[in-house]
């Protein structure tokens, strides 16, 4: 592993992914209610997520996880830390 490779493995948020990129959920943060809703929909640590596309105006984004497509705003996607897959 080159130092550059290690840098690539650094945790980013879901909102920073490029369309088509895949990542694994590392941590979800936020108020308890928001956290619970996200978790119930399957955003639990270890879940593989693909950012499918961005909406015409750049926001929200379309995600694919657990065989389902969800649309989520970048402000919320920012609270989901991911490791690139």
């Amino acid at each position: 592993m080159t130092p550059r490779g290690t840098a690539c493995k650094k945790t980013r948020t879901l909102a920073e992914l490029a369309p088509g990129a895949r990542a694994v959920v590392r941590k979800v943060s936020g108020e308890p209610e928001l956290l619970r809703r996200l978790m119930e929909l399957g955003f639990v640590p270890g879940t593989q997520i693909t950012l499918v596309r961005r909406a015409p105006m750049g926001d929200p984004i379309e995600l694919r996880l657990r065989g389902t497509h969800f649309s989520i705003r970048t402000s919320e996607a920012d609270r989901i830390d991911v490791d690139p897959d």
Partner: protein
Amino acid sequence: MSIPTDLAAVAPSPAEGLDRRPETHRRLRRKLVAIAGGPNCGKSTLFNKLTGLRQKVANYPGVTVEKKAGFCTLTRGSTVEVLDLPGTYSLRPGSPDEVVVRDVLLGVQADTPLPDLTLLVLDATCLERQLYLCMQLIEIGRPVVVALNMMDTAEEEGIHVDAALLERAFGAPVVPISGRTGSGLRELREAMEQEVGPPRPVTRALAAPLREAAETVAGMLPTAGPLAGLSRFHVAMALLLDEGENDSLMRAVPHAVRREVLALRSRLDAEVPEWRSHEPIGHYRAIEDLIRRATLRVKPEDSMRQRIDRVLTHRVFGPVIFIAFMAVIFQSLFMWATPLMNAIDFGVSALGRFIGPALPAGPIRSLVVDGAIAGVGAVVTFVPQIAFLFLFISLMEDSGYLARAAFIMDRLMRSVGLSGRAFIPLLSSFACAIPGIMATRTIDNRRDRLTTILIAPFMSCSARLPVYALLIGAFIPNRSVLGFLNLPGLVLFCLYVLGILAAVVVAWALKRTALRGARPLYVMELPPYRVPSLRSVLLTVRDRAGLFVQKAGTVILAVSIVLWFLASYPKNAEVKPLEKELRKVEQTASEAQARGQRAEAAAGRAQAVHLENEIAGVSLRDSFAGRAGRLIEPAIAPLGFDWKIGIALLSSFAAREVMVSTMATVYNLGDADQTSVSLREKLRHAEDPRTGERSYSPLMAVSLMVFFVLACQCMSTVAVVRRETNSWGWPIFMVVMMNALAWIASFAVFQGGRMLGLG
């Protein structure tokens, strides 16, 4: 985990019970089956298939969540009652809909007994996301039958699901079905008929802090009472995780348990801040394992969906297609519905002509023909447009395009402080603000929901369509614009746009003043594209058109008759001799007809028409309605409206579409047994008796339509807002705000138009 398997041990035996009557009653009543499932799982289609046309829609008491119930006959001839619960991802409630689902399934919903069986509908094409609800439901410990829906589609898409393995894992019958083709429904009915035991909860890990807390609460739960037939562990989990403090579930347990739950919650918050994640993490570990064992994907994900989405959500094409689609809907809405409307109009006139002569001239004939038939007829005429609108809405919803529209619109909706979720209630409000406002229940955030409720009535609802159609038909020439649009269609489109603009401005203002606050969580599923089921689309159209007619049949008929009375009484002294003369003229005309003197008969009939109009004019000027209309005339004259429009405006507070039947009553009095002049003609040629000029101009029509776009003139909307906001403050605010806006806008249109010389 302590899950009671021997339910008889905790359930009170009937012999011991002091009050035996409820127990007997419980035995005698029909078996109750609740249908649960996630959004887009095909639950409603299955409900329709099972119940056929034997269903009724009501509300759960105290809330505005729709309660859809029906009856289903099983294979051996027994009948069960079926309850279609709102779609939900989880049993932990976040909205009133979800509270109802939890309360029904736990048996604490006031008017609904604990279901004998829960029918869980799972979409086999995206099983993983739905197993969360499944795990929670099975954990309740009540009998469950799983309907594995869309099995045929799953096979086509290359997804194999091992139903037998799921059956073993849940300890509950799993029946593969297809709601679309109806295959597997016979087996499902058979499974519903059998005695189903409690399912077996799927083993899953649960982190110690939450598990121990739940066990403590479970140990404190009473062995009798409302929650006794359920898994005590699940009830404990629900109490801890549902965030309620004094909700229906908390009230169902003794005070000591409630205190303990609150204490445990604050202790967990302090010691293990992430304790609420323990349930989802544990469930999803078990779900992942189950999915690995029970499903097999042999083909990669559908590329068709990708290709369609690439176009429909494209940065440029997406919004363009969306707007074009909306424009086409309203253009065709106006043009396709016209022939049907004309046919109904013709039928209603024929009915009046047929029944009228059979009744004696005078108050009775007038009541039946001018009050009842003309009033209801004028409203029924517009059913085709309502049906077309709902056809488009349900096609969009069932095909999956509605979610894409929300995806495209979200950024825009956010600029007024709303979410893409508000788009669906607002779109529904184009048909009627009542279901639209009720659909705001899916918006979790209170401020977002209030804003959406307050702007929903600006969407031009189907009740405004009759008004628009009448005025456009009467005053807007059928000319083509730019070669491919027609002017009436274009005007209609502009009215819809005006409503949307008003909503945007008001939402923007509200979000910056009275309803400021943090943004809520916004997550929406983008379902796969599906070919809509014709049956389900037509059922929606029938339901919605039916609701409109029902409203027309009761409220409108009643209002029409009251208005007929207000417009006919008190009788002016001048009317009596005129009526006497009319009877004489009619008598002479029919005698002439009998003798075969056609020319004389025709002259007599023409004289009768003239007399009838005179009677109408005299009666109306002096009637209660005429007086009220004249009373407000000074306030509405700057908008171009005369006192007759004033009558229509006042009466349309009952419901906007009443304006049309009011105009019909106002102008048709005594003119129904020979309806040669339609209402549109009447309006176009109406003259001001004081000046002899035409009363109404196209400019007045535009001003009036603008007024109808913006004004809150619907009693039912006010009532539903009162109920949804649980206050009188908001509906009163809404009425004042909307009507002030309407007056100002109409004033600007009429006076501005006159200054430009358009009057």
